[in-house]
C-alpha cells in the first residue's frame, strides 16, 4: 500500500483529486436530499433543519480538507446567499479554524526564499508550530527584544491555483446554493479578482496601514503595527494582539455594557469605512477580531478590502432609506444601475424583481431605520433567513437567465451580513449611526 505512492493518490492539490472531492460532496449532498424526501414521506413533520445540518457537515468535511481558495469562495457564497440557514453558518465559521498546517521545514524554506535568512535568525524566538491556523496559511508567534510579533505565512501555490479552484467551486455553487449559471459567472469574476488580491500579502500590508491610519481616531479600536522589512509576498509580520476571540470572550460572560461597547466600536469602524473612506474590510468573521483588555477591539487581517465605486454607493444606500420617498422613475433607474432589472426583462418580471428586492433591502436596512437597534433580536435574523430561503427556492429566480444584482453588491452584502451576524453573537444594542443624507 505505502510503496505505491503515485501522484494522483498523494497530492490532494491535483486537479483530479479536487474535482473528485467536489463531485463526491455533490453526490453526498444529493444523497442527503434523497434521504430527506424519503423520510418526509414517512414522517411529514420532519423539518428541513435536520437536512441542512447533514448537508453542512458534508460540505464542511470536504471543504476543510481542501483549504485554500476553494474553501474561501464556498464560505463566502454561502454567506452571501444570506441566506444560509443557521446550521450551515456555524459549520462554515468552524472551517476557519481548521486548515492543515505548514510543516516547519516549509516555513524555514519560505523565509529563506524571501529573506535569505531562517526565522531563528530574524527573531529571538519563533514557535515551530503555528499558534493559529488561517484559511490560506498560518500564524506563528515570534519575539525580538521585548516585542511580540504575529507572523502570518501563506501556503505555497495558493495564488496560482485560484483560477482552477474557482472552476471546481462552480458545480458546488450551482447545486447547493441554487445559483443560476449567469449569476455565478458574474460573481466569479469579482471573486477571482478579490482572491488574487488576498493572496498578495504585500498589498495586504499596504491596505492595513492605510485603513488603520484612517480609522485611528475611533476610540477603543486597535490595529497591529505592520513591519514591511519583515514582510513579503507570502509573509506578513505584525504586532501580536493580545486578547480573546469573540467566542472565548463571550464565554467569560461579559456584561451587557461591555458587549454594547465592543459592538459599538465595530459599528463605528464599519460606518466610517463605508461612508467616509468608501473602502471596507470586507471579511467580518469572528476570526478577524480580537477583544482586548478594557473591552477594546483589535482588527486583524485586511486581506479582503472592497473599494466601493461611487455610483454603486449612492444607488445602494439610497435604497436603505426608511421611506422610499424617491419617485417611481428614479427608483427604476436605481434598480437598473444596480443591475437588479434590465431591458431583457418582461414587464411582469421587472415588477416582480423590483418588489422582491425592495423587500430584501428594506429588511437589511432595518437597523438603519431607527436610532438604536437591538441585534440580540433573533426574530430579525429568522426573517432574513426566511427571505433568503424563499428567494433561493423561488421559481422566478431560478428560471431567470440573468444575473441579478451588481457584482459590487456581493462583497457589500457579505460585509453587512457578516457585521450583523457578529453583532447578533454579541447580543449588542447599537446606536446605528449613518450619514445625514441617509437619514429621513
Amino acid at each position, binding site marked *: 500500500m505505502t510503496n505505491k*505512492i503515485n*501522484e494522483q493518490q498523494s497530492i490532494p492539490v491535483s486537479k483530479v483529486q479536487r474535482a473528485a472531492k467536489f463531485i463526491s460532496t455533490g453526490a453526498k449532498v444529493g444523497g442527503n436530499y434523497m434521504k430527506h424526501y424519503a423520510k418526509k414521506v414517512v414522517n411529514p413533520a420532519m423539518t428541513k433543519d435536520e437536512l441542512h445540518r447533514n448537508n453542512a457537515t458534508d460540505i464542511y468535511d470536504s471543504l476543510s480538507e481542501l483549504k485554500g481558495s476553494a474553501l474561501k469562495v464556498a464560505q463566502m457564497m454561502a454567506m452571501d446567499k444570506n441566506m444560509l440557514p443557521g446550521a450551515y453558518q456555524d459549520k462554515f465559521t468552524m472551517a476557519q479554524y481548521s486548515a492543515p498546517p505548514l510543516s*516547519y521545514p516549509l516555513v*524555514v524554506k519560505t523565509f529563506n526564499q524571501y529573506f535569505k535568512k531562517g526565522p531563528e535568525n530574524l527573531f529571538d524566538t519563533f514557535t515551530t508550530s503555528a499558534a493559529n491556523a488561517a484559511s490560506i496559511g498560518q500564524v506563528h508567534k515570534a519575539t525580538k527584544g521585548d516585542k511580540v510579533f504575529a507572523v502570518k505565512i501563506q501556503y*505555497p*501555490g495558493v495564488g496560482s491555483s485560484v483560477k482552477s479552484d474557482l472552476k471546481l467551486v462552480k458545480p458546488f455553487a450551482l447545486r447547493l446554493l441554487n445559483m443560476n449559471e449567469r449569476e455565478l459567472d458574474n460573481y466569479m469574476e469579482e471573486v477571482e479578482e478579490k482572491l488574487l488580491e488576498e493572496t498578495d500579502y504585500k498589498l495586504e500590508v499596504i491596505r492595513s496601514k492605510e485603513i488603520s491610519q484612517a480609522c485611528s481616531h475611533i476610540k477603543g479600536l486597535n490595529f497591529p503595527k505592520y513591519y514591511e522589512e519583515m514582510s513579503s509576498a507570502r509573509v506578513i509580520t505584525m504586532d501580536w494582539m493580545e486578547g480573546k476571540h469573540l467566542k472565548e470572550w463571550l464565554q467569560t460572560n461579559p456584561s451587557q455594557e461591555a458587549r454594547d461597547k465592543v459592538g459599538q466600536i465595530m459599528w463605528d469602524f464599519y460606518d466610517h469605512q463605508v461612508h467616509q473612506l468608501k473602502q471596507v474590510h470586507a471579511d467580518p468573521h469572528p476570526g478577524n477580531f480580537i477583544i482586548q483588555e478594557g473591552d477594546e477591539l483589535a482588527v486583524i487581517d485586511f486581506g479582503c478590502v472592497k473599494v466601493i465605486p461611487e455610483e454603486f454607493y449612492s444607488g445602494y444606500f439610497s435604497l436603505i432609506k426608511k421611506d422610499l420617498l424617491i419617485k417611481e422613475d428614479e427608483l427604476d433607474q436605481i434598480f437598473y444601475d444596480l443591475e437588479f432589472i434590465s431591458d431583457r426583462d418582461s414587464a411582469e418580471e421587472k415588477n416582480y424583481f423590483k418588489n422582491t428586492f425592495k423587500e430584501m433591502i428594506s429588511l437589511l436596512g432595518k437597523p438603519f431605520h431607527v436610532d438604536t437597534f437591538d441585534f440580540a433580536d433573533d426574530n430579525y435574523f429568522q426573517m432574513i433567513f426566511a427571505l433568503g430561503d424563499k428567494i433561493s427556492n423561488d421559481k422566478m429566480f431560478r428560471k431567470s437567465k440573468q444575473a441579478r444584482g451588481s457584482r459590487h453588491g456581493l462583497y457589500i452584502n457579505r460585509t453587512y451580513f457578516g457585521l450583523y451576524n457578529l453583532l447578533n453573537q454579541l447580543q449588542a444594542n447599537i446606536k446605528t449611526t449613518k450619514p445625514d443624507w441617509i437619514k429621513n
Partner: protein
Amino acid sequence: MTEKTKNSHTDKNKIIDGYISYILETGSEPVSVFKFTKDMKMKEAVFYEYFSSFGAVKKAVWELIFDNTIQALESQEIYQSYTSREKLLGFLFTWIEELKNKRSYLLAVYGNVSLKNQSYPSELKGFKAKFKDFASGIVNEGKESEEIAERPYLTDKYQEAMWLQVMFVFRFWLKDDSPAFEKTDAAIEKSVNLAFDLMGRSAIDSFVDFAKFLFQSK
C-alpha cells in the same frame, strides 16, 4: 587537504562543469571523450581517472546534488531536532533548491524521459543508494519515536517508497511552471504528510491488532 586531493577535486569538478556546459550549449552529448577532453584542453587519460563514460559523469551530478543537499541540511542547527517527517520534508525542500541551480541541465537531459515506474535511467543508481541509506536512518528514527509503525514485511519497503516519492517530486518539479516552483513545495508537503500518515499507526493497525486478539482468544 593535500595537494593531490585538491587537484583531483578540481579536475573532477572541471569535468562535471564542462560536461554540463556542453549539454547546455549544444543540447546533446559530446560525440566522444576524445573530442570532449580536447575542447576542455585536458588529457583524455585525466577523464578516465575519474569517469569511465559520460554516463558516469551524469551519475556524479546526481551524487553531487545529494551531497550538497545533506551538507546544507546538516548545517541548519534546527535539523537535529526535527522529527522524521520533518527530516524528510527538510531534505526534499533543500534538494529542490539544489536542483534549481541545475534546472536547465536537468530539463535538457530529463525533460523528455518518462521517469516512470522502475525504468529510471541507470545514472540514478548511486544517488538512489545514498538516498536509501539516508531514508533508512529516517525510518529507524521514526520507528523509535513511534512516528512510524512497525509492520512485518511492509516496514522494509518504506525506504523504497520514499525513493519513489523523491522521483515523483522530481517529475513534478520538472513540469512545474508556477512562480518560484510553489506548487512543488505544496506537492512535497502534501505527499510527505500522506506518506507519514500511511506509515504511522492508524486505524488499520488497531483493527489488525484487535482481529488478531479475537482470533487468538477464541
